[in-house]
């Protein structure tokens, strides 16, 4: 879905720093891609470039047939839903109202919400298990609950592409699994393209189809989950002693710190 060619990014100002250089990668359509790497490796920056939050990148990015920058704002919002790492929480909105804003790209400033919109809002809340606090203020929820509310808003947005910046960072293991499971389910059933920045190696190995590993702003490794869950690969990416055990009678591997 996204095709990147020689993409680089420098910060502006006096102490300009190169955050990304020479990234060439194709994120496959209708697949779950994960971006991994050490802290400060440029993962979030890359995702923000894809979400058009940073516009001064060098190189060439295509989304579908057109260049990334050629889509109109509304058109882009209908195709791409983006969840930042720390979204601003409006202090006065209830959960249902916030999720309702997912329909904004489709209805705009003045269009009336139709029954189909309310159905999509309800469905998004059901999928993310947040119906129980639909009428509470978002600001009064815990970090993990909020993360699910934001995800619900993205689902209500009904875009074929999801960009998620650490969508599970505040979640307990159960909800991490639920959310990633949900996302990869949606990928299989309705053909979503998902690109997520993730930290948990085992979750990446379990759910991702395609993995891009960054190191100091450069591509360090890319490939599929089976090849990712190898001690050699992980040691190279994270520069730490990591071992991998294959769980008997399954195709799951787990990593551990050696």
């Amino acid at each position, binding site marked *: 879905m996204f095709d990147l060619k020689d993409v680089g990014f420098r910060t502006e100002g006096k102490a300009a720093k190169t955050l990304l250089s020479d990234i060439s990668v194709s994120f496959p359509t209708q697949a779950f891609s994960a971006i991994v790497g050490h802290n400060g490796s440029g993962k979030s920056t890359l995702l923000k470039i894809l979400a058009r939050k940073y516009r001064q990148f060098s190189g060439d990015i295509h989304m579908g047939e057109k260049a990334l920058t050629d889509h109109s704002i509304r058109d882009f919002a209908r195709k791409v839903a983006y969840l930042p790492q720390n*979204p*601003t929480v*409006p202090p006065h*909105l209830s959960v249902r109202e916030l999720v309702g*804003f997912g329909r*904004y790209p489709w209805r705009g400033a003045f269009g009336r919400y139709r029954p189909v919109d309310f159905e999509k809002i309800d469905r998004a809340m059901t999928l993310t298990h947040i119906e129980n606090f639909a009428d509470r203020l978002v600001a009064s929820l815990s970090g993990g609950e909020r993360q699910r509310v934001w995800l619900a808003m993205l689902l209500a947005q009904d875009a074929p592409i999801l960009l998620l910046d650490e969508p599970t960072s505040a979640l307990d293991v159960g909800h991490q699994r639920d959310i990633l499971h949900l996302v990869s389910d949606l990928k299989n059933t309705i053909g979503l393209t998902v690109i997520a920045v993730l930290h948990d190696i085992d979750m990446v190995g379990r759910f991702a189809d395609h993995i891009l590993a960054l190191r100091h702003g450069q591509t360090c490794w890319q490939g599929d989950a089976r090849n990712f869950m190898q001690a050699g690969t992980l040691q190279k990416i994270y520069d730490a002693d990591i071992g991998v055990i294959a769980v008997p009678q399954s195709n799951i591997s787990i990593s551990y710190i050696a």
Partner: protein
Amino acid sequence: MIMRPAHVTIVVSALFILLAVASIFADLLPFLQNSTAWQALFKPDETRFDQIFFHFSTLPRTVMAFMCGAGLAVAGGAIQTIFRNPLASPTTLGVGAGVELALTIFLVMAPASLAPYQDIFTLTGGMVALGVVYLIASGRSNATLWLILAGMIVNLLLHSATQIFMLFHQQYLDSIFMWGAGDLAQNGWDSTFYLAPRLVLGIIAIFALVRPLDILALGDDTANSLGAPVKWLRLAILTLAVFVTTSIISAVGMIGFIGLAVPATLRFLGFNRSKSLLAMSLLIGGCSLLLIDYVLRQFSGTGGDIFPTGAATALIGAPFVIVILRKARIMPDGNANRQDHPADYSLAPKHMLMAVLFAVLLMGLALSLMVSLNEQSQVIFTPISDLFTLNSTLGDRAQRTLAAIVCGAALAVSGTLIQRVGHNPMASPEITGVSSATALAMIIAMVYFGFEGRTDLMMIGAIGGIIALLVLLGLCRNFTHAPHYLLLNGLAITAILGSVVRIALTHSGTKATMLISWLAGTTYFTRMDEVIAVAFITAVLTLLTLLARRPLELASMGADQAVSLGLGISLFRLAMMMAAAILAAVSTLLVGPLSFVGLMAPHLARIAGFRLAGAHLIGAILIGANVMMVAEWLARNMLYPQQLPTGLIAALIGTAYFLILSARRQ
């Protein structure tokens, strides 16, 4: 900045001392050439005008400038350290305005026998103002911000009170203006000898307390656990700082921004310990004002034009403060404002409350028109049939009351838009300086370019307001972060307004009275066609913003999120800000820049539970209209037959509201 403070000290102080000495030599040059310098300095030849002028005007003026600059900078440094707030200073925390009001009242009202007590009276004025500011700000989650906000509110309020007072005592007007504008001109050594001992005493006492000051700078808890009697120390040092400020203001009037800019800049350069900070403040503050005054003196000779130093200092100082504080990044983080929202309001829509507010507005309108007070405070009832007589009293009243209501609504919408789009519950047209810029544009057009037509002025004012907002948007990139910058901007523009008004008033003569009462926000000059025009503009813009309530709500989620959901945020923001500026401008023309309705109405509406953009707008409109209606009635009847300015009464209500709010929190 890689230079170490030690080097900075030497370089900076040497530079300033050199410049100051050079300026004195420049003044002395003609006497040095014919070797009468010694004579001019100490024993002027009474037959030579130039020597007399130098000895009795230039020299005391130079000494005065140094003393005032030094004193204000030291007082500012101490106050900043105590409040741990780089924006605190005698002038920003209302001390100056308090002293000004107290002194004006004292000069006009007090019998000569009370003259020895002038110091105590003015000191009390300054301390009371500071106390009120402190009361409003203390106990809030982000006291840094509230302190400055409260300072601005109290400042504006006291200023307008001073102006009202002068309105009723017009015979003293001109001399009070000159004094209020910070005029350093001297005709003898009297003021110098009056000021010198007070300053020396105050400054020595402050220097004696540098160690406690350092401990206070660590924070109350730490200071307490180190065994310092925090409350008493703070009170003692503040009293000394206010005393120094009071003495200076009594002697020469308001001189803004030296007390703010000098210590703030020095701290930015790395002077963190109180001792070095205060010592350098003394030196640099004194030299700066001396130099500014020297430069101004070069202009004042031509044509006898008077350009008061204090007002000019504010003109130079205000932009400088913006620049230095932006660079210094000494502002605390802007995230704290979230805590100001209680997360406990219910989600139910407030139709009932809305209906009640509307009913109150209608009934209040009828009552405020028909009921009034006479000279003996007896209630007079005017029957509705009066409406059909010639020269109807009700018709006249209706005009003014409607003007107030319309302005209340316009300011409420303007404030709601600025607060929502700016993500800042404390922003408002008055606080961000939009109202001030509007007034500024109008005054300049009126006094210097001779515009008379109120329609022209309204247009010019609107342009001024929009320019101010655009500058604001440019300064606070994206408008999203740091509510401080908004306040800073408002502070600067308001200060500039204050000094331009003062300069303009000393020039304008006959228009002065009208200007003052307009600045204080009177509805007296309002005409019905203007009311209708403003009401029409307000109605159209309100309707448009109500239609745009969905994107308005979306804008509160931040720029990134809004764009992700397909809203072209920059254009939308610009449009909303334009609407806010236009509304602020048109209402400023009717009631002046002072009322705090634009701040108070959206604030109250949110607390009352009007949550979503549409309801918030309507709630704020109803509250704003109600407040202005009440203010207008009070202004008309409180001191009948004297007519008080509506804006001032509204501001009084606003200040009272914030005081009550802070009292309830404690």
